[in-house]
């Protein structure tokens, strides 16, 4: 397959998957005796209908973009980091300490908190990375274990160390240290802009710098990279650290911009969601960001849909899951040799031979 055709397939498969999933979702709605058209209408209104709703969608997309970019970067470099959630949480814990304990306020507090969150996420990502390259550990299992550990550690933080009086939650980030909103009155903050910038930076790094080129080569073939003189293990560890740092920055941003405090359930599920989105985005950072936006819109819209029509939000969860199921299967299908044969025959022309 040549490149243009491959690119076409890369776009075609996810788009088809999305349409198919929504169609199935609508059939389920009809089965629930709801009017699918009305339900989808409310879904769209809930996601984009008003300035506030659009703001909510972007707000919810922000952390997802970070964890999705975390996964995207790691996989591009050949490390299966499933620990985005833990790294995200560690970032938010660090930011929480900074904004509550360091005596900083205002812009300096925001900056220091974001930096510390980034560092904390990076360090948390470094642990499975080190275990992988020194002990040959399966990074997936280890990074999942570290998700649990981070979540529990966050529990200690909000029930003990930084607990604020009445409830198991930390105190709120002081008003003057919160990430500012882009437009007053709409929830979306500069965190969203940071997410987009990070996404563009990652895209640029991977596809337009020599180091990014090498990271990608390592991701595609470690042995060949080693034979060609790349410090493969160092790159893999770096990939872990950088992807962890991205997640950590996301966690810090979420804390400083949206949630303002650590509380039970903070960030729950973001890690695996990010993995799924990166995969649907074909590990392309820019596509990944769009997928995250799409998922956030589905989620935001589905609460309105449930409130308005009684169609449960789990229908939207099913739609999201089906998108993943179809996309991944679809991409695998197009890579089968039988598929190219079939397509070749279908279009009645032979695969151009290398001459």
């Amino acid at each position: 397959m040549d490149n243009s055709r491959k690119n076409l397939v890369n776009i075609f498969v996810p788009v088809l998957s999305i349409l198919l999933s929504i169609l199935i979702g609508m059939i389920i709605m009809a089965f629930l005796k709801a009017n699918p058209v009305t339900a989808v209408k409310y879904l769209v209104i809930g996601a984009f209908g008003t300035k506030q709703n659009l703001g909510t969608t972007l707000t919810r997309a922000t952390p997802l973009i970070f964890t999705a970019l975390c996964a995207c970067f790691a996989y591009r470099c050949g490390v299966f980091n499933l620990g985005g959630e833990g790294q995200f949480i560690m970032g938010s814990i660090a930011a929480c300490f900074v904004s509550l304990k360091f005596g900083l306020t205002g812009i300096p507090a925001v900056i220091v908190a974001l930096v510390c969150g980034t560092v904390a996420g990076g360090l948390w990502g470094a642990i499975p990375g080190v275990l992988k390259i020194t002990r040959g550990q399966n990074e997936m299992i280890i990074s999942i274990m570290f998700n649990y550990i981070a979540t529990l550690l966050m529990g200690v933080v909000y029930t003990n160390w930084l607990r604020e009086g009445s409830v198991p939650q930390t105190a709120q980030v002081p008003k003057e240290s919160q990430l500012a909103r882009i437009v007053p009155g709409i929830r979306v903050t500069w965190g969203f802009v940071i997410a987009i910038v990070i996404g563009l930076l990652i895209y640029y790094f991977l596809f337009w710098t020599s180091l990014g080129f090498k990271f990608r080569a390592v991701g595609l073939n470690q042995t060949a990279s080693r034979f060609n003189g790349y410090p493969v293990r160092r790159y893999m560890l770096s990939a872990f650290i950088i992807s962890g740092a991205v997640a950590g920055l996301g966690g810090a941003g979420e804390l400083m911009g949206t949630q303002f405090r650590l509380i039970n359930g903070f960030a729950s599920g973001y890690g695996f969601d990010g993995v799924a989105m990166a995969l649907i985005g074909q590990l392309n950072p820019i596509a990944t960001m769009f997928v995250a936006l799409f998922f956030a819109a589905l989620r935001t819209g589905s609460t309105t849909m449930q409130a308005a029509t009684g169609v449960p939000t789990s229908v939207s969860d099913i739609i999201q899951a089906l998108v993943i199921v179809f996309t991944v299967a679809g991409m695998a299908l197009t890579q089968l040799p039988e598929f190219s044969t079939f397509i070749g025959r279908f279009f009645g022309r032979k695969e151009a031979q290398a001459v």
Partner: protein
Amino acid sequence: MSELLRIENISKRFGSFYANKNINLTVEEGEIHTLLGENGAGKSTLMNILVGLYQPTDGKIFLKGEEVHLHSPNDAVSKGIGMVHQHFMLVDAMTVFENIILGDTNAKEIVIDREKRRAQIQELAQRYGFRIDLDKYITEISVGEQQRVEILKALYRGAQLLILDEPTAALTDIEVEGLYDVMHKLVEEGKSIIFISHKMREVMHVSDRITILRAGEAVATVKKDEVSAQELAAMMIGRDLAASSFEKVISGGSAVAELDHVSYNRNSKHYGLNDISMKIRSGEIVGIAGVDGNGQTQLAQVLTGVIAPEEGTISLGDSKILVYDPNNFILRRTAHVPEDRNLQGLVGDMSIADNLVLRRVETDKFSSLGGAFLKKGAILSYAKEMVEKYDIRSRSASQTVRSLSGGNQQKVILAREMEAEPDLLVVAHPTRGLDIGATRFIRQQMIDARDRGVGILLISADFDEVLELSDRILVLFEGQIMGEFPGENPPVDEISLAMTGR
């Protein structure tokens, strides 16, 4: 003698490429029928069809006059067809015993009756004079023993037709003799054998009849007694076999690489090096002759920094190597055409252009601002230049290398390595699996490089290739150097003897 197997008009297509085309063939009972053909001629593909692994695109198969449909290896086994594959089909994590009884469909018992089956196997082994330890794991036995396990596997299943796909490639001469004995015993019992090889000596020694495959087609079937080796070779290659056309260099320049008492994993017969001392001079090709799996891989890898020797030292030019790391060797102007081009040489999912600049993306030619900006235009135009220069046949330079044919993949690697202008070039199996055109091109490139003053270490399982290209020949056996021979008028018999450890 009556006919056991008849193949009619068998074709097999992979994508748009015909690996077999309209092949007709018969095998008699009690016959040793040889399939002769160059690399890639389609021998293994045809046999894989016979054992049900591949489904033919077209054609029919008859056993004892009856048409059979071999949908799976199971069908083939139950019809008495057994095969020893070119690449052994053994499960490393299991013992010899387990490998032999694996997939046994005759056994009706649920729980394995070890005693009974061991006795059966022992009896079989004795009948053919095999000595094997049933309780050893596959990883613990030698390649020759592995092959005996493979043969036992087939016999244990009651094969009437035994297919041996290049069985001698990894054997020493003694082992080859033993194999002949077994083959003769088998045909005496009325079994038939399809023997695959491209080594003329063997073919002339064991065959009753010979079918020659060329580029997927059966060119001819002849009785052994009615042809000469020369004629066979001509049919196989489709032209007359010419002697080495390259001029040999008598003595090279200064040493570009020197190994001093280098050992690695010394106790392993197949995967180690034992006290190796040698020099590679500039402007010469040093060929390593030897049966595959006698330390060649390790030799190539210590010389390129992929693995570090456990004892001894390596010097490149004038300086001793302290850090064994591929990058360190690359910086000291070493180039490497590795043995596994897909795994070790190329990043299959990247483009031709990307693979060509794999080592040099951060140079000013291909990126600016210290690597912060890739000059994609420059990379592409360089790639186009290389595609031209090295005759890499492709649709575009941004095509992924995975979609290239083996020969063109090899040319990509060669282009990258040659353009680095190395002092030392380590080449492993440069033309394995390539067609004649590509093979010629690549050999010529190596000779040209030598003439430019590059010191080349050539490792090849293809003895003829070593003879043709080398200015000096070293024989490697069980990790040791068994002798050094001149490349000009090489003493072929002596070298072959040395390859068997004598």
